[in-house]
């Protein structure tokens, strides 16, 4: 599969802040590729560089076979962008927003009605065509923003955290729409903080402080996780009550909360019986399981090796 985006060693600084510290990115044509990570990881910065909205300091990048810094017009024509903050006109109606975006993309009056109707079928927003965008629910705003980003039939869609702050059901509906677009051949680059969405991507780049800490297809990443992951539980107790004890027992290892339980990636010991013996000698109520990782376990074990000074303390 050819890469629609290929970037090597992208560096971008804002004053003293190093937003991207030499990032590589490959987005295969027709894929949904995810940038996964918290705020400040560099997700929006690399997207803006892809879209020719920001200039890189150094590194090489090709998007749709051109250098975005050199051929902005071509990039703008063939890409659709949904920025992180809601960017539509809240006092315009749904229909007026679609029309406005069609005009700035020079869609042409004849093409417009057909495209609008197709987008209405896709988004099911037609009953709300006269509603002001500001009065739509969160989920519907996302659908409208997506429709506006699609009005000029782009080959590449760049979506910056489109589902942040959106409830799980609306997120599921939004992803169904993305898969429909993928089936039509559109390539999608999307960022998200939600691991359940990362699983729905063909490829992911896990980002932390301007660097890619892990990349690949989610399923293979999980399959290839070679460390030993254990899960601990004390029935009837909250995990916060016994995590410190586990941190003491396995000092120097990655020990962290996971929902109602505690997970630990153990490099020192791999033997289940040995792990069990150690925790039971501290508290007989411990239940221990050796488990397969989820993406969040993988992400945490990767970033724990980095400097963690900036997290909540």
């Amino acid at each position, binding site marked *: 599969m050819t890469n629609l985006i290929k970037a090597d060693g992208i560096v971008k600084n804002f004053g003293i802040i190093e937003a991207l510290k030499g990032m590589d990115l490959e987005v295969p044509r027709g894929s949904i590729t995810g940038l996964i990570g918290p705020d400040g990881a560099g997700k929006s910065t690399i997207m803006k560089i892809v879209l020719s909205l920001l200039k890189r300091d150094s590194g090489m990048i090709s998007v749709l076979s051109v250098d975005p810094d050199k051929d902005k017009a071509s990039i703008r024509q063939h890409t659709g962008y949904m920025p992180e903050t809601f960017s539509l006109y809240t006092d315009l109606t749904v229909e007026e927003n679609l029309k406005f975006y069609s005009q700035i993309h020079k869609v042409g009056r004849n093409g417009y009605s057909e495209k609008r109707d197709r987008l209405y079928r896709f988004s099911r927003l037609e009953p709300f065509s006269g509603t002001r965008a500001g009065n739509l629910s969160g989920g519907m705003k996302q659908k409208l923003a997506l429709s506006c980003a699609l009005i000029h039939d782009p080959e590449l869609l760049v979506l910056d955290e489109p589902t942040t702050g959106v409830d799980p059901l609306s997120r599921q509906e939004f992803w169904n729409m993305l898969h429909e677009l993928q089936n039509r051949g559109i390539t999608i680059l999307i960022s998200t903080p939600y691991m359940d969405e990362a699983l729905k991507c063909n490829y992911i780049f896990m980002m932390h402080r301007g660097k890619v800490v892990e990349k690949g297809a989610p399923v293979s990443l999980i399959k290839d996780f070679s460390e030993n992951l254990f899960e601990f539980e004390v029935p009837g107790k909250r995990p916060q009550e016994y995590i410190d004890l586990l941190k003491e027992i396995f000092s120097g290892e990655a020990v*962290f909360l996971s929902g109602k339980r505690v997970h630990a990636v153990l490099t020192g010991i791999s033997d289940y019986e040995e792990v069990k013996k150690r925790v039971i000698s501290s508290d007989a109520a411990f239940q221990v399981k050796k488990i397969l990782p989820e993406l969040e376990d993988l992400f945490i074990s990767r970033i724990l090796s980095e400097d963690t000074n900036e*997290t*909540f303390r």
Partner: protein
Amino acid sequence: MKPSGDTTIIIKNLIKKFGTFTAVNNISFSVKKGEVFGFLGANGAGKTTTIRMMCGLLEPTSGDIHVGGISVRKTPGKVKQHIGYMSQKFSLYADLNPAENMEFFGSIYGVPAKVISDEKKKLADRLELSSLNRIKTQDLPMGFKQRLGLTCALLHDPEVIFLDEPTSGVDPLGRRNFWKEIYTLSTKGKTVLVTTHFMDEAEYCDRIAIMNFGRIIDIESPDSLKEKYSSVNLNDAFIRAIKLDRENSEDL
């Protein structure tokens, strides 16, 4: 109705209408002292309207709200002393430095100067910053901002703390440290109400209320919710709960 010793929040038959639209449609629930209570719902389900009424910021159309023994309807101004509010997105002034933010929030709640200066020292030690005056809040790392936000929300020692999507944008380690702190607060008797769209975080709550179309459709522990909707995780349980409620509403 007076709350009993171990109940901090009592909501009874609460209704809020905006014109012909019923945003909150006759909800009742209570929250125990020290409970971590999750407030979930689809966007537009009525969560924010409910929280704003509980904080005394919005007058209910009808119904009763008691927070920390105060009738919010009778004395909406008084309840603010009993509530701390933190939102990852909005609660701090970005162009003030951390010390100024603490002074600001401390002074609007009438916190004694001595308490504010003690808290400043504690925070500086905790963050290992030599000074809280030399950096603007907007330039702090995300995790530090979050700690500052929580500190400001707790300066006046409220009984109840509202956390409105408190971990949005925070890295997975920071989110875990935050939830450990929330647990510590709850063991000290603080009642915690939290909204979040991270369903793995909702697992840390003692009970969860799910709202849809202005009504509460479930109040259960995370485990009972998963069991009720035969789901492996809360994300799945949430989706099933809302879908089922929508189907039932359409049948009527």
